């Protein structure tokens, strides 16, 4: 174990060297951007200023698309719909009610309220339990099409295919518009940047990497996505409002899916998941398109299309990060918080006598196939129950039924006195359940520290704009992190860890939830002998010293013998025996189940 510690100490300094380089690169970029915004009117001609203003508004939407797609994994063609809504809010109000301070405010209010509402609606439609990402994407395609059709059939009210033109709008010089648009873009970019690197922003990446794990950490992922969509819808709507107010012309193309896909193309080419890549991509491509659209319209679109396909197939990270690689190396950054202990929260709202886990008559059928039948099981805190049985006995199904209210076909499950009914995993987790999966179920692209912090989300709300310098974990989670050497690898990316370390990380994440009941599915799978001994010691102490109720499914009977206080044998969906290890192991019934008729053979021979 001493070797492990020195090894990790040696790797720690390397990431820190990257940090300053990356920060420097971004700082330069940011300063250049601010300079261009501040001094633009003196550098650029009128035509270019005009294009840039529109490009800035588009770039704001591109940033929102990156947050939705690059960071959260939601491929959306529909942000243009919100952009169009905002633009038409301006156009409609100014055309039909004239222009004044009050109508401008009304239009603004309409843009915000309208986009928030539609965003929430689309979110409800797209993000729900078991939703497929395809479906969400197709909905995002349907949205702009529906909106465009509605606008086209709006007659004189919406101006149909020609849109609304010539309405009175804010009387500002070109330079003022340029500064407004530029500043808005800078603000949105800054805000976005703060959010994505904040602790809360990491949750978005976690959802993209492994949504199921998030739900098993109690995070209400559907809610998060709906809120994010509504917020970005409002931002896109405001950008549209600005565009509509500036240009004095709104047409159905602003809300159509052609524009929606252009945003995707800019983000893909610019570099999804980087924020500044899409920003640059949007601005550059818009400007170049404007200049080339007159001279070689078709060829340029063709080039863009080909570049897009090329990038998707061969360079998924995008072009801009590739071109700027000399400036910095991509990665989540070398930020490493300090580990501190969190005092476990007091037990509230739970009847003292209620056992940690109760199953009554739990059954699971797939049509005629009965996987589980009439399971009655109870476990108290401080117990370590080993669940054994041959393959196909239904062990993993049983675990699923305990952690997800919608799984079972019949019977009742009680967690710490709460009936889980048909509640989804995120609610079951909030009753005090933690589940560790068989294959290390973690967030591949996040650091160890980020994984651990996200694990504690429901207990400590992560900050929306900052990164906390400390990471608090309950004592038993800290123990896991320290004994397995993860404490020295806080800034290592999760997918670079060894299998044993990943298993340890997932266990620490589950423990960070301060669960009362921990379900472990084959925790020793793929571990070396040393790692297995370590885990065994940790699990024993969890039950004995910290009073957790642990239930583990295991094949390694030697391991189970060492640590379990009780054994439950599952066979063909029924509990056939419960008792201490000695009782179970020496029973004829269990021997028959496990070794077929192997036991009979020596007698026959």
């Amino acid at each position, binding site marked *: 174990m001493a070797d492990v510690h020195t090894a990790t100490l040696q790797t720690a300094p390397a990431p820190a060297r990257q940090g300053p380089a990356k920060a420097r690169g971004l700082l330069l970029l940011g300063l250049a951007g601010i300079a261009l915004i501040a001094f633009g009117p003196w550098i650029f001609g009128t035509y270019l200023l005009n294009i840039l203003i529109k490009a800035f508004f588009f770039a704001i939407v591109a940033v929102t698309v990156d947050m939705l797609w690059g960071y959260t994994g939601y*491929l959306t063609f529909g942000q243009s719909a919100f952009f169009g809504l905002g633009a038409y809010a301006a156009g409609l109000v100014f055309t039909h009610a004239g222009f004044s301070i009050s109508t401008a405010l009304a239009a603004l209010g309409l843009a915000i309220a309208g986009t928030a509402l539609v965003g929430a609606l689309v979110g409800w439609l797209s993000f729900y339990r078991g939703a497929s990402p395809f479906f969400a994407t*197709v909905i995002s395609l349907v949205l702009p099409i529906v909106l465009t*059709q509605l606008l086209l059939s709006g007659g004189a009210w919406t101006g149909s295919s020609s849109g609304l033109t010539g309405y009175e709008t804010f009387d500002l010089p070109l330079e003022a518009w340029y500064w407004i648009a530029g500043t808005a873009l800078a603000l949105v970019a800054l805000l976005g940047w703060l959010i994505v690197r904040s602790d809360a922003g990491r949750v978005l990446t976690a959802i993209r990497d492994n949504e199921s794990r998030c739900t098993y950490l109690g995070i209400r992922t559907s809610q998060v996505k709906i809120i994010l969509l509504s917020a970005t819808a409002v931002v896109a709507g405001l950008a549209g409002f600005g565009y509509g107010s500036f240009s004095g012309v709104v047409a159905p193309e602003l809300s159509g899916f052609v524009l929606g896909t252009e945003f*995707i193309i800019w983000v893909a080419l610019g570099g999804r998941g980087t924020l500044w890549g899409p920003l640059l991509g949007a601005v550059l491509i818009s400007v170049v398109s404007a200049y080339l659209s007159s001279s070689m319209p078709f060829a340029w679109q063709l080039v863009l299309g080909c570049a897009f*396909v090329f990038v998707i197939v061969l360079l998924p990270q995008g072009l801009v990060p590739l071109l700027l690689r000399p400036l910095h190396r991509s990665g989540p950054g070398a930020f490493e918080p300090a580990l501190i202990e969190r005092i476990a929260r007091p037990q509230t709202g739970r009847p003292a006598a209620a056992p940690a886990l109760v199953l009554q008559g739990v059954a699971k059928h797939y049509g005629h196939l009965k996987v589980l039948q009439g399971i009655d099981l109870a476990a108290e805190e401080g117990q370590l129950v080993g669940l054994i049985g041959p393959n196909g006995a239904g062990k993993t199904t049983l675990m699923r039924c305990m952690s997800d209210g919608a799984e079972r076909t019949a019977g009742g499950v009680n967690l710490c006195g709460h009936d889980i009914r048909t509640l989804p995993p995120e609610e079951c987790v909030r009753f005090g359940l933690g589940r560790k999966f068989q294959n290390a179920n973690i967030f591949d692209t996040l650091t160890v520290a980020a994984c651990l912090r996200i694990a504690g989300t429901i207990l400590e709300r992560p900050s929306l704009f900052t990164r906390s310098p400390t990471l608090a974990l309950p004592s038993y989670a800290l123990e896991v992190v320290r004994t397995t050497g993860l404490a020295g690898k806080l800034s290592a990316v999760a997918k670079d860890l060894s299998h044993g370390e990943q298993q340890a990380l997932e266990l620490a994440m589950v423990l960070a939830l301060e669960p009362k009941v921990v379900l472990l599915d084959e925790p020793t799978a793929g571990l070396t002998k040393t790692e297995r001994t370590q885990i065994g010691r940790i699990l024993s102490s969890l039950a004995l010293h910290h009073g957790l109720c642990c239930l583990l499914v295991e094949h390694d009977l030697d391991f189970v013998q060492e640590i379990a206080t009780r054994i439950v044998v599952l066979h063909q969906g029924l509990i056939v025996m419960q008792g201490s290890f000695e009782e179970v192991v020496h029973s004829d019934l269990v021997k028959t189940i496990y070794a077929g008729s192997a036991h009979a053979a020596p007698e026959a021979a």
Partner: protein
Amino acid sequence: MVFLLDWLTTAAMLFIVTAGLMMIFGVMKIVNFAHGALLTLGGYASFVVTQLRLDPWLSWPLALLAGVVVGCVVEAVIVRPLYKRPLDAILATWGLGIVIGQLIVIAFGRGVQFVDAPLQGTWSIAGLPYSAYRLVLIPVALGLCALLTGLLNGTRFGVKTRAVIMNEELARGLGIHSGRIRFVTFALGAGIGTLAGALITPLSSVDPDMGLPWLVGAFMLVMVSGHSMFSLLVTCLVFGACQVLVSTYLSPVLGGLTIAVLAALMLRIRPQGFAHG
């Protein structure tokens, strides 16, 4: 009566347009977003036939051939490398659709064109005159359904394809070259898509964006429908009826949206669609 004919011919058109997409979705589990461009390609195949003053019936085989060739290239170059990244596969096929669209614009210009229908005039059904070509689409759709069902259920290729659809890993373990099956299926699905474009073109017109309105509707139908060609036919009948009802009694614009909206709501409430749960 007119309603009945409108309903049946609309359902037929929907089926023809969606069949190719369904084949690809079933086997490869990805939605081919280039489908709209393939429809457009088929439309322009018809246009070429018209321009060359050839027999309009030739547009069908020409379109089929064009689609198969394009499908072969696309599967090898774009879809196969993205086997493990399905969302990116959608994007890449979308980008491809854009590229094809631009190539068509460069070759034929942006204007709206008209093609000669293989069958002109009207037929009299129960005393009512109705577009002959439109009516022909009903037996064409039924024939296509029968042909594809026969292919999938009756031939060795078909049973191998169904095996790959059900359990690709098992199929491979039995010696079935699933890569080849995917290749052929994609090319075939693309060919049917282009053929569909040629089939529906005489009823409206040809322009570089003609395929796009069908795209979303086709996806929704594929996602709602069960897993067989027959269930797709049923789905098209059901949604076709809704579309015609809304178009006739409310407005054609809303009619165009009916399929997308209804299917979205249905999938939200019952994610398996018409498939057995």
